[in-house]
């Protein structure tokens, strides 16, 4: 397909109405095709699988220190340290065991909505209402002002909603309220690739854990979850099943599927090879939007944080809810499993983070 075609004016005989009609019929055909290959449901395959035993997950640590809503957090690969960012403009690096605050940096903006730990453990990235994503190298000297060495890498035209390093410290992926996501070279600040396709704010992104690590998924206010090829900038797959904004997307550990959390109070599970939604995690009693999801190490459990201050634990295969985790006093904005899968950290608008195990 020649991409130049799309930029030309209306052709002879084409009107907005005919294009719209063609779009509707193509969409219908795609759904039909997807449906034809749907020969078995996930919970049917899972019937023979053992039921997950009762979980006893309790709060083990409460991290207090932020003076306003905690919006985002990320673990370091050493399974012990974590970084969190908040509406108060501060980014704090914590030691998860001792609750020691190793670094505290002030950003020149409130609402730092995204933060990420570098794979090497030597830097953190953060961004928010300042429309930029900056990388801050961490130092061993706790007296040194880390924020002074902050380096602006990503520049968007609206707020930064999510960021992550790729497999190395050298590249950064960011997504923004301006509807685009982009890949940046950290050292030079150069834009390597930009990704266009969402028709409204993008709220979340996640990098695929696959062997070749070349794709990532984004979810946005246009209710779509899109999968992108990092090399070509193309939108490879798109899923439009939610009824409201998608707040968070996360890949399944094998890389063949991903889950999404949305304001319509459901979390959904999408299979990339079958190209369709394979499970919906919902309950009549769950009415409030889900803000965040993460999988357990094996992918059997899905932890979802909701706006009714709770975390629900779902059995991914059977589609049922296993348990609820109470404790936060306001919306849960982010849940992340530690790299070794032994602990879960949740960040909340009640100004605290909790570590559960």
């Amino acid at each position, binding site marked *: *397909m020649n991409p130049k075609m*799309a930029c030309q004016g*209306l052709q002879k005989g084409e009107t*907005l109405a005919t294009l719209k009609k063609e*779009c509707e019929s*193509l*969409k219908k*055909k*795609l759904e039909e095709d*997807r449906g034809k290959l749907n*020969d078995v449901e*996930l919970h049917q395959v*899972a019937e023979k699988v053992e039921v997950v035993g009762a979980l006893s997950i309790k709060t083990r640590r409460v991290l207090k220190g932020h003076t306003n*809503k905690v919006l985002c957090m990320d673990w370091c690969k*050493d399974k012990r*340290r974590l970084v969190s960012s908040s509406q108060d403009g501060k980014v704090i690096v914590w030691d998860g*065991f*001792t609750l020691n605050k190793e670094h505290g940096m002030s950003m020149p903006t409130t*609402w730092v909505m995204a933060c990420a730990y570098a794979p*090497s*453990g*030597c830097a953190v990235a953060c961004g928010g209402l300042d429309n930029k994503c900056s990388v801050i190298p961490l130092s*061993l000297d706790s007296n040194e002002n880390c924020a002074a060495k902050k380096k602006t890498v990503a520049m968007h035209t*609206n707020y930064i909603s999510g960021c992550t390093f*790729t*497999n*190395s410290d050298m590249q950064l992926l960011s997504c923004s*309220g301006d*509807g685009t996501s982009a890949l940046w*070279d950290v*050292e030079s600040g*150069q834009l390597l690739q930009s990704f266009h396709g969402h028709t*409204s*704010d993008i709220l979340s992104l996640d990098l695929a*854990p696959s*062997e*070749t690590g070349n794709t990532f998924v984004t979810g946005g206010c246009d209710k779509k979850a899109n999968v992108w090829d990092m090399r070509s900038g193309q939108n490879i797959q*798109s899923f439009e099943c939610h*009824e409201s*904004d998608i707040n968070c997307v996360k890949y399944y550990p*094998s890389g063949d599927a991903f889950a999404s959390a949305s*304001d*319509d*109070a459901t979390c959904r599970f999408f299979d990339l*090879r*079958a*190209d*369709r939604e394979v499970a919906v995690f919902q309950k009549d*009693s769950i*009415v*409030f939007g889900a803000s965040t999801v993460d999988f357990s*190490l*094996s*992918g059997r459990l899905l932890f979802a944080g909701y706006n*009714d*201050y709770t975390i629900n634990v779902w059995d991914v295969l059977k589609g049922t809810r296993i348990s*609820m985790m*109470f404790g936060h006093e*306001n919306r849960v904005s982010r849940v992340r499993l530690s790299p070794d899968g032994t602990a879960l950290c949740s960040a909340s*608008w009640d100004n605290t983070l909790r570590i559960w195990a």
Partner: protein
Amino acid sequence: MTIRTARPDRVQHFRPRMHCLKKLEAMVVEMQDQKSGVKGSEQKLNVTTIPHVLTGKDIIAWIANKMKTTPEEAQTFSTMLVAYGYIYPLQNHKKLVMCNDSSLYRFQTPYFWPTQKWFAEDSDYAIYLAKRNIRKKGMLEPYEQAHYNHLHEWLNHKWDFIVMQATEQYKAGKERKKPDRVVFDCQERAYWIVNKPPRRTHSAIDCGPERLIDPNTDEKITFDQYRRQNMFYQQAIMRSKVKSSVSLGAVDLPTKMRVERWSFSLFELLSDLRGRDDFKIFLKKEFSGENLAFWEAAEELKWGTAASMTAKAETIFKTFLAPGAPRWINIDGRTMGLTVKGLDHPHRYVLEAAQTHVFLLMKKDTFFRYLKSPVYKDIQKKALNPEAHNFSPAQLEQNANSRSPGIHPIILWQQEEEEKAKAAAASAPVDVKAMMSKIDRKK
């Protein structure tokens, strides 16, 4: 005089969607049903009686019954009803939670229900505060006083209008019967606690930064967007898809041992550096280490800095791809041809095809032989040994608190870089000519 805006206009004025409102409203209407709703009673407040008062535990019990959930979940749900302003507490009116006891609550009048369509206006809030000021000077709380002063400053141009409205409402209020007045005051106060929460408290109306797109209107799609969408759908239809039974069948069951995790897939084995090392030992014995070394070098090229690209590409070519190279990898002629050609203008993904080929080779052949090898079986035996500690929770706490910070990731990374540099220097092909000339010079 220009009106100062409270914050920079980013041309986004749309609140995030509150999708739950419809369901909440339906629930609240059911709760107020005469026959099947929550049973209320009257409450005596000084000399007046307030009708339709409910206790927290009745509400929670009704919800638990209706939704068939546990009391904890029902309490969470009813706390949200209070946080959104559908129900308000009569005692302790600033704390927006539902308590599972005999605390008293009332339903909020639909006039004051939260809605997606408009914000609670600042001028309305100013009128409300002014009205309270008229009634009893000095009755405003500190945070309300702060709001009042701020509004007085930036709504100064409208202040006469605001005071006039406040006086009118005050007079109208006086004309009502006492019980109605008390009820209305409570309702209004509850509405403003939800929409302008006191400092350091949160209500559910607070939903984060505004969005660029209006959630209430439909998208206006241009013809260009339609065309792009059509192209995308056509490509999606043509793309090969897998049957569900094939795709879902590949679901792994969880296990805990790190070593067993390596046996899941080659990717898991390589991701865990300890596993990678073990694999290297095996490969050394088989004299086929060059595949893994090439894969690692290709990874480094992909994720490295833009500046190092040409240098790395050259080293890789010399070490792995050139005819007669010291660690020549065995890939098919076509891939080799493409890769070598691409290396004329090296970029990040120039080794993609070769890397995939090598990875698949390892995955289909070497990996399974590794799993059956004595090297792997040996490490499996060793790994099963440590028994679980049986620390009590108190002991665990103590252990965690007295744990040393461990090696800082920065130091680890520096050490790794040093080791890599040493390894690179050691494995660099020896320049025989330079060595010989050195020896000659010595002579």
